[in-house]
C-alpha cells in the first residue's frame, strides 16, 4: 500500500508537472495576447514606463562611456596633430635659419670681389614679357644708375632709373640692353641683346667662329657696366647659313624672368 500510494503520488506529481507546463504556457500566451490587444496609446505609455527603469539607466551609462570614448578619440587625434605641427614647426624653423644663413652668405659674400646688395623685386611692367622691373632699393641705399642686377641663377639686367627709395631695372629683354659676352668654351666674344620673345641673341659672332649648342655664355667684362663672369645663358640654336657674315645664335637665359623675387645689385 505504501508503495502504491507512493506510485500514485509520483504519477500525480508527473501529471501535475505536465499540466503545470501547459497551464504556464496558456497563462503567458494569454498575457501576451492581452498585451498585444491593448490600445496603442496604452502600450506606448506602458513601454515607456518600463523602459525608463530597465534599459534607460544602462543607456545612460553607455552614452557616458561613448562620450568618454569620443573624447579619447578626439584627444588622440589632437595629440597627433600637435605632434605633426610641432615637427613641421621645427622643420620650418630650421628652414628659416638656413634661409637667414643663405641671405647672410649672399648678402656679404666675402669671396666675391663685388659688393652685393640684397634687393627685392616689388613690381614689373604689366606685359607678357616685362623688360622693366622695380626693386625696393633706391638712392638712399647706395644704388646708382647702371649697376648690374643679378640673382643666384645669373645676370638679370642693370639699373636704369634711381629714385629715393626704389629703382627701375632694365632686364636683358629690354630693346636697349646690350651686354658684352663670351663663350666660356671657345672664348668667342659677342654682344647679347633681345630681339623680342623670351630668348636672347648673341650677335656679332663671325660665321667662322666656334660656337656650339650647349655652350655657356658669360659676361666678358669688356664693357664698364657689367663685370666679367656673370652667367647670361646657354646656346640653344646656331644658324650659320642665314647670314653670310655673322652667325645667328639664340640663347636661353639662365634666369627665369617670370620668377624674380630675391635679387642682388652689384656695387663695383
Amino acid at each position, binding site marked *: 500500500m505504501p508503495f502504491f500510494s507512493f506510485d500514485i503520488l509520483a504519477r500525480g506529481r508527473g501529471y501535475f*508537472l505536465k499540466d*503545470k*507546463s501547459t497551464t*504556464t*504556457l496558456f497563462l*503567458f*500566451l494569454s*498575457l*501576451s*495576447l*492581452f*498585451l*498585444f*490587444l*491593448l490600445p*496603442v496609446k496604452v*502600450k*506606448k505609455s*506602458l*513601454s*515607456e514606463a*518600463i*523602459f525608463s527603469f*530597465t*534599459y534607460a539607466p*544602462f*543607456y545612460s*551609462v*553607455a552614452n557616458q562611456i561613448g562620450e568618454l570614448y569620443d573624447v579619447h578619440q578626439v584627444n588622440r587625434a589632437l595629440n597627433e596633430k600637435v605632434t605633426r605641427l610641432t615637427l613641421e614647426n621645427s622643420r620650418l624653423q630650421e628652414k628659416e635659419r638656413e634661409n637667414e644663413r643663405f641671405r647672410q652668405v649672399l648678402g656679404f659674400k666675402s669671396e666675391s670681389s663685388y659688393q652685393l646688395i640684397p634687393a627685392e623685386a616689388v613690381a614689373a611692367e604689366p606685359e607678357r614679357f616685362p623688360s622693366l622691373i622695380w626693386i625696393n632699393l633706391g638712392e638712399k641705399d647706395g644704388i646708382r644708375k647702371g649697376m648690374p642686377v643679378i640673382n643666384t641663377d645669373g645676370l638679370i639686367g642693370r639699373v636704369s632709373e634711381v629714385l629715393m627709395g626704389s629703382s627701375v631695372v632694365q632686364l636683358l629683354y629690354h630693346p636697349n640692353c646690350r651686354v658684352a659676352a663670351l663663350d666660356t668654351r671657345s672664348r668667342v666674344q659677342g654682344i647679347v641683346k633681345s630681339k623680342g620673345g623670351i630668348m636672347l641673341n648673341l650677335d656679332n659672332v663671325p660665321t667662322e667662329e666656334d660656337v656650339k649648342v650647349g655652350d655657356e655664355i658669360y659676361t666678358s667684362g669688356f664693357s664698364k657696366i657689367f663685370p666679367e663672369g656673370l652667367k647670361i645663358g646657354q646656346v640653344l640654336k646656331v644658324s650659320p647659313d642665314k647670314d653670310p657674315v655673322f652667325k645667328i645664335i639664340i640663347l636661353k637665359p639662365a634666369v627665369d624672368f617670370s620668377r624674380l623675387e630675391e635679387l642682388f645689385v652689384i656695387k663695383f
Partner: protein
Amino acid sequence: MPIRNLNLSKAANTLFLILIVVLYQSLFSRLLTIHRISLDLPLLILVYVGLTRGPASGAIFGFIVGFLLDLYNPSFLGLGAFIKTCLGYLVGSFKDNLYLESNLSKGAVIFFSLLLNDLTYYFFSSGLNLSYVFFVFLNYSLLSGLYTALVGLIFLWFLQIGKANEITT
C-alpha cells in the same frame, strides 16, 4: 528547505540571465553586430533555459525576454512575448524528447529557433507581407542564425570545459 534553496537559486539564476539580456540589449548588441548581422543573445539564453529547465521555465523566460524586447517596439507589444513564449515552451519540450548530447544538434536547435522566431515575428509585424519576410529571412535571419549558433557552440564548449574541470578536481 533544500527545495526552497533550489528554487531560490533558480530564481536568482533567472534574474541574472534577465539582467544579462537587458545589459546586452542596452550596451553590447551594437558592438557585436557585424554589417547588420546581429547576435541574438536573448534567444540564445532562451534556448539554453528551455533545454536545461524544461517547457514551463522556457515559456516563462520566453515571455519575459519577448516582453523586454517588445519595449523597443511598443506598437507590437505582446507579439514578441507571444512568439518567444511558444518558442521557449517548444524548445523546453525537447529537453527529454530529443537527443541533445551532441553540440551540433544544440547548435541546430539554436539556428532553427532563430529562424522560426524571425519568420513568425516579421510575418505578423509586417502585416503578413511575405516578400518582406523573405527579404529579411535571406538577408539577415540566415546569417544571424549562423552567427548566433556559432557563438552558442563556443559558449557550450566553454561550459563543457568548465564542467570537466569541476569533475576532475
